[in-house]
């Protein structure tokens, strides 16, 4: 009798414990909470172990290497080269994962949200969907599907693998204008996990497969956790003194006058104005 009583209690207790089916058990997931910033001492180069520009030594095809060199030459002359961030457009993937500012990661069972201070958020779906999902429309961030892995078998996920497809462009990796292919067929693979020896370091191994590359390009980003988090509303257009007219980038002076952004630059064509400028 006593056995039956306690066996019944056991079943009831187990049922009650399991009952809140909608409870999200955070203990199954790694602690990615807080604010993540670039590693101290790194700039916003793509491979954070190297300086931006030529030291990156990317495996670009000859055609795209020429484009990149033209971008850097234009920047040296005062232009923006391939770097479209001057227009306040999103950096898109993979460049946004350099963390220009800081980011925050929210984990829910079906989705992970990466929230930036100056780019629209990334949605990484972990609900088992595939890339045939009907809402998979091209974007600068791409469409991301993630998978949690318990690599050490301790019953807790420790690695997030993400694959991102379906892009818009143009996109580039870093301010030097290191280009991705115009076909926008890039595939970005990420592996994110906490450093085993330092849980305040989040490692992101990013591999880019792109038609502008001769082989997949893997870099390892290390993000540091800032526990004393402070968020800032970084609105790119708020104080953007760059003015794009057609394909020309100009600059606006502090007193509101249009200025050349590079030496010898022609002014904009004013053919549509009935009165001329001063």
């Amino acid at each position, binding site marked *: 009798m006593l056995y039956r009583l*306690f066996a019944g209690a056991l079943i009831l207790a187990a049922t009650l414990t399991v009952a809140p089916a909608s409870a999200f058990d*955070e203990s199954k997931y790694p602690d990615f909470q807080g604010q993540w910033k670039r590693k101290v001492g790194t700039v916003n180069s793509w491979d954070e172990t190297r300086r931006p520009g030529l030291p990156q030594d990317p495996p670009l095809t000859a055609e795209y290497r020429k484009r990149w060199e033209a971008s850097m030459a234009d920047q040296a002359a005062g232009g923006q080269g391939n770097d479209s961030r001057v227009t306040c457009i999103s950096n898109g993937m993979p460049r946004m994962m350099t963390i220009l500012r800081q980011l925050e990661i929210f984990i829910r069972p079906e989705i992970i949200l990466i929230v930036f201070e100056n780019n629209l958020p990334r949605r990484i779906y972990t609900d088992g969907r595939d890339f045939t999902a009907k809402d998979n429309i091209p974007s600068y961030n791409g469409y991301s599907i993630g998978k949690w892995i318990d690599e050490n078998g301790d019953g807790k996920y420790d690695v997030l693998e993400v694959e991102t497809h379906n892009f818009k462009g143009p996109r580039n990796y870093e301010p030097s204008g290191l280009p991705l292919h115009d076909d926008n067929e890039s595939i970005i693979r990420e592996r994110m996990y906490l450093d085993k020896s330092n849980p305040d370091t989040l490692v992101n191994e990013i591999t880019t497969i792109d038609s502008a590359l001769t082989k997949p390009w893997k870099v390892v980003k290390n993000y540091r956790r800032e526990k004393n988090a402070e968020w800032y509303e970084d609105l790119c257009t708020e104080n953007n003194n760059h003015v794009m007219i057609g394909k020309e980038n100009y600059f606006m002076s502090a007193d509101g006058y*249009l200025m050349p952004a590079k030496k010898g630059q022609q002014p904009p064509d004013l053919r549509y*104005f009935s009165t001329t400028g001063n």
Partner: protein
Amino acid sequence: MAFTKRSIVALALLVTFGLPVLDATAHDESKYPDWSGQWRRPRGLATQWDQDKKAGLAQEAPLKPEYQKMLEWSMADQAAGGQGLDTRYTCITNGMPRMMAVIQPIEFVILPNITYVHFEAFMPRRIYTDGRDFPKDAEPSFAGYSIGKWSDTDGDGRFDTLEVETRNFKGPRTVEFTGIPLHEDNQTIVKETLSLDKSNPDLMHNLITIIDNAFTRPWTVDKRYRRDRNVMWFEDNCTENNHHVVIGKENYFVNHEGYLMPARKNQAPPDLRFFTDAPK
């Protein structure tokens, strides 16, 4: 016999009392309302502030005479091809409270300490529900600093209402596209009460009260959002196809061929004094 009476008792006690304690990090979503999905404006409505009235003067915003004149000027400027007081054409965020007019769909992400409101075209709102107070040294922002409090108004053990207060703004901000202005002192206080309609769980009410020095009294509207469960998210990068160009205080237009054009009749071209090859 693998289990003795004592071990079964111990196991039952452990399962009953031990595991829920061990599981302290679980976020019990059943305590919160189901606000999942995508929330949109009711069908047939534009982005006017009070959804029950037409935009502009018909809103009957309780503006002080000085700010009523500003609204009238803004609408007159817009009628002449200008943008009036509406700054959205520069791709700056609408900020609070206007962003809650829900131009494009929004999403709520509810976590124990914070509720996020995600937009397609703006950076997210953070509504802190961790019991904090308004910080004294926070940087002002267009979205403001939001503190929320969940309440269980019908006593069924589940939160159903989120009350939010938002302060600490930057400006200029407007209440709607016609340019209904908020005061330049940016001392606005926005109070929101968000809850699902009792007879229709796919309808959300957001009772928004604006307290602002441009107003003669607090202004409350009942915003309704309809749930779309057939979720489709779109990346709305405002600057991607923005043909407006602001030079100084003038708004111009860039046509599809890349030529600068006047945005209104007889608009003077920009002053090109800094160009050596400028037309004379």
